[in-house]
């Protein structure tokens, strides 16, 4: 049986207690999306300032996180905000896929298959690795992925709509 320390690694508690990039960005111009976990009522707002570089690539120059939730959803959002700041949208897509792979690889383990492979080797998840333990607590996976699903919505959103 996995213990609490598998779930609540020190770095997670640190991000929970001192969330990075907490706040709001003016929208527009920032992209904005809200995510809800209907099971627990947690909500997250992701703001992204997206800028076009000289070579035409789009990058996230600033990010802010609003809303409230449990330690796992808050820590995941905080770590995510640090991980995507200053990255191009293509890089962010890679990080997102690597993070989700980390979550779902272990979901497969629950079915009894033993395979465990590391996320795409070219992507370093850094602090986010600490969330690996969440997969041992299946009901909490949604907490960890809420910010990421909201991030994807924010990227796709039209800052000038609405």
């Amino acid at each position, binding site marked *: *049986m996995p*213990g*609490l320390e598998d*779930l*609540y690694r020190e770095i997670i*508690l640190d991000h*929970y*207690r001192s969330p990075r990039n907490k706040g709001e960005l003016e929208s527009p111009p920032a992209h904005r999306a809200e995510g809800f976990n209907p*099971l*627990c*009522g*947690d*909500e997250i707002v992701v703001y992204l300032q997206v800028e076009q570089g000289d070579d035409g690539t789009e990058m996230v120059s600033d990010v802010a996180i609003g809303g*409230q*939730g*449990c*330690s*796992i959803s*808050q820590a995941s959002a905080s770590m995510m905000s640090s991980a995507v700041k200053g990255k191009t949208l293509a890089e962010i897509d890679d990080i997102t896929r690597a993070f989700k792979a980390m979550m779902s690889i272990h979901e497969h383990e629950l079915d009894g298959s033993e395979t465990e492979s590391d996320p795409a080797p070219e992507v370093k998840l850094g602090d986010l690795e600490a969330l690996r333990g969440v997969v041992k*607590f299946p009901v*909490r996976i949604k*907490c960890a992925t809420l910010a990421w699903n909201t991030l994807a919505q924010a990227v796709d959103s039209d800052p000038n709509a609405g």
Partner: protein
Amino acid sequence: MAVTHDLDVASIRADFPILSRRINNSRLVFLDSAASSQKPKSVLEAMDHFYKFSNANVHRGAYTMATEATDLMESARSKVARFIGAPSTDEIIFTKNVTEALNLVARSWGGDNLGPGDAVLVTEMEHHANIVPWHIMADQKGFDLRWIPITENGHLDLSDLDRLLDGVSLVSFTATSNVLGTINPIRHITDAAHAAGALVMVDGAQYVPHLPTDVVELGIDLFAFTGHKMLGPTGIGCLWGKSEVLEAMPPFLGGGEMILDVRKDGFTTNTLPHKFEAGTPPIAEIVGLGAAVDYLDNLGMDNVRAHEVSLTAYALRTLEERFGDSLTIHGPSEPASRGGLLSLDLAGTHPHDVSQVLDQHGICVRAGHHCAKPLMRALGVNATSRASLYVYNDESDVDALADALEAAKDFFAF
């Protein structure tokens, strides 16, 4: 109140096989009966016995086992009728759960009686099961949904009741809040509603398992509850209604059992209660519910209530002493006006995290919005941890909860 005697919790616990289970190397402390209670051996055995010895469809065969199955089902119906003080067994309609019963009323009675200019009055402390069916019908029929607000200490604010009732055709409200524990003044609201010409529907999901219930004394018109919160199995609930109200309502689901005759050009509905029981019912579950009623009858509902009042008082006192201002307990502070469920807010922690730590100590509580989002908004919280008490809980369970909350507080302390 009637003369009561103490429940023998140790012997009650011995009747519930699951309570000897261990969770994470601790004894199981089950504090989530408001979501679904555990089941005594007698309920499990009644269902098992039905499948092993009397299994057959009901109301359909002339052979011995079909008659036995029908008798078992109908005797459970009589037990349920007696348990809630229903004047007639025919007024007991078996449904899947309280949710289905509320939907039945919304669709059938609401479909027939509500339209533009009409209004249904609910309260801010309703479970979604008594909100969404009305939203669905309001979208179709164009009537208004009105809300009785709550006061700061978790009671219904009835100061404006007469104005809210003006033009209302039905008041539908919960007897006991599944978040605050508040026991609402059913008779008072019912009298006011009747004076205003409105019908009264009550959601008894958190009431019937815990207090002596007499629908006639309460004066209400329609009532619903759910088996799995009162020691019975899942998949079985009940709608009670005054005969004349149920008679006037059109059928809900159509199919076998609910008809007297079917022709190419139409059908004739069966009599009560069959009119509202289309298709093969969950027979084993009905038998199980009957056994659950027997179990509770045996304990005596006055004794059950007295046990919960004193245990709730102990819990409120203990938590207040040990946590003071760092723990908010939502809802009324007087045990006599509340049920034994406590929605907790531990400063600096999130309910999901608290319930995770509690689980490590073998303690089951529910974390979340408890299917009452309008209430959560009124309270200004996203979620709470809810501990709920029942016949198999005692002071040692409350102490275990307090110890584990202490651990959660230390773990997440800033």
